[in-house]
């Protein structure tokens, strides 16, 4: 039997944003790094994303935003995660995020923002390091 406990991550795009090339490349890279990637796709509402994270019992949520709506949608997702008592779920943001907004997002509770030019290896090692720090994928 295969009892391997891989890192489980939900990747989603919230709001009206049709650019999904980047998130698909990340999905593939994380898959190739041995993770379980639940690809939730385009045009998700914050409510649907949080429900997906809950039902999939994911360790991480990766949000991709290229629409400029990150300061509206990301806090909404974070608030819903808190309301759902999913505080243990780490949140990553990727896409087009202006420099000056990055500290705002991390201050709200985003674990890390990965902008254009990020290597796949960087995302993978970030997630692996965090998994190691927490002792187990599922505590």
């Amino acid at each position: 039997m295969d009892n391997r406990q891989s890192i489980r991550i939900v990747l989603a795009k919230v709001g009206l944003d049709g650019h999904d090339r980047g998130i698909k490349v990340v999905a593939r890279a994380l898959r190739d790094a041995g993770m379980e990637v639940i690809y939730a796709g385009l045009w998700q509402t914050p409510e649907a994303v949080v429900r997906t994270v809950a039902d999939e019992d994911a360790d991480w949520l990766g949000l991709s935003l290229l629409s400029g709506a990150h300061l509206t949608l990301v806090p909404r997702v974070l608030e819903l995660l808190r309301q759902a008592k999913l505080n243990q779920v780490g949140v990553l943001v990727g896409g087009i995020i202006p420099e000056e907004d990055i500290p705002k997002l991390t201050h709200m509770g985003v674990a890390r923002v990965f902008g254009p030019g990020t290597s796949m290896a960087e995302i993978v090692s970030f997630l692996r390091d965090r998994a190691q720090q927490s002792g187990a994928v599922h505590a």
Partner: protein
Amino acid sequence: MLEALLDQFRRGDRQAFSRLLTLASNGEIPQQVLDQALSSPKRSKVVAVTGSGGVGKSTLIGKLIPLIRKENQTVGILACDPRSPLTGGALLGDRFRMVSSTSLSNPTEDDGVFIRSLAAAPGHGAVAANLAPMIRLFDAFGFDLVIIETVGAGQGDTAVRDLADVVVLLLQPETGDELQWEKAGLLEVTDIVVIHKGDLPGAEETETQVRDVLALSEGKSAKVLRVSSKSGHGVEALWQAIKSVQRAGTVMTPVPNGV
């Protein structure tokens, strides 16, 4: 920790249910613990949806969800996708297709729908490990229906028969000749054969071939339906057919070894 989770589970806590599914999936809940904790009798109807990769399993399940919900039935879905034999990783994309193909505004936000994506290791008969205890949990949580979507499955992947009350096999036009359907395997353990993508040319011919072959089998034979998720044609008929298959009683007695 398991006791506390089971307590919350009994009180209807969806997240405790979700966590328990993970533990069950990892093989971390011993069978006797489950049996003790969940005394309720089996009442969920378990439907397996199988067929080769790209035949439209997730899309068709997405089309079934609104029909199931219209009758106020709740549905849990165990969606299996392959795990890489090289890295152990998996890209689980069934949920995305189900959600995009459905006509419900957003099934993800509907409390009556629960989708869990699972990675299936190679060589497990096209399903993830430990599905039985997971189905048990869905049952005890009160879901009326549990749908298992297999990994894209070929001729020999008959393991779902043991888990399901109803096996739905999806075929598509322009696959195989008459001899193809004579072969042993999946077609033998199927209750309903769906000729999917029924709007495409060749669907009628495939349907005729399958019907001819099934007409030769002794005893109860599978229903054959032509369905198009694109046009919606046949989806309602499929739902009616699923409902009409009797629970569990249809399971065939296995052929003893050495006969």
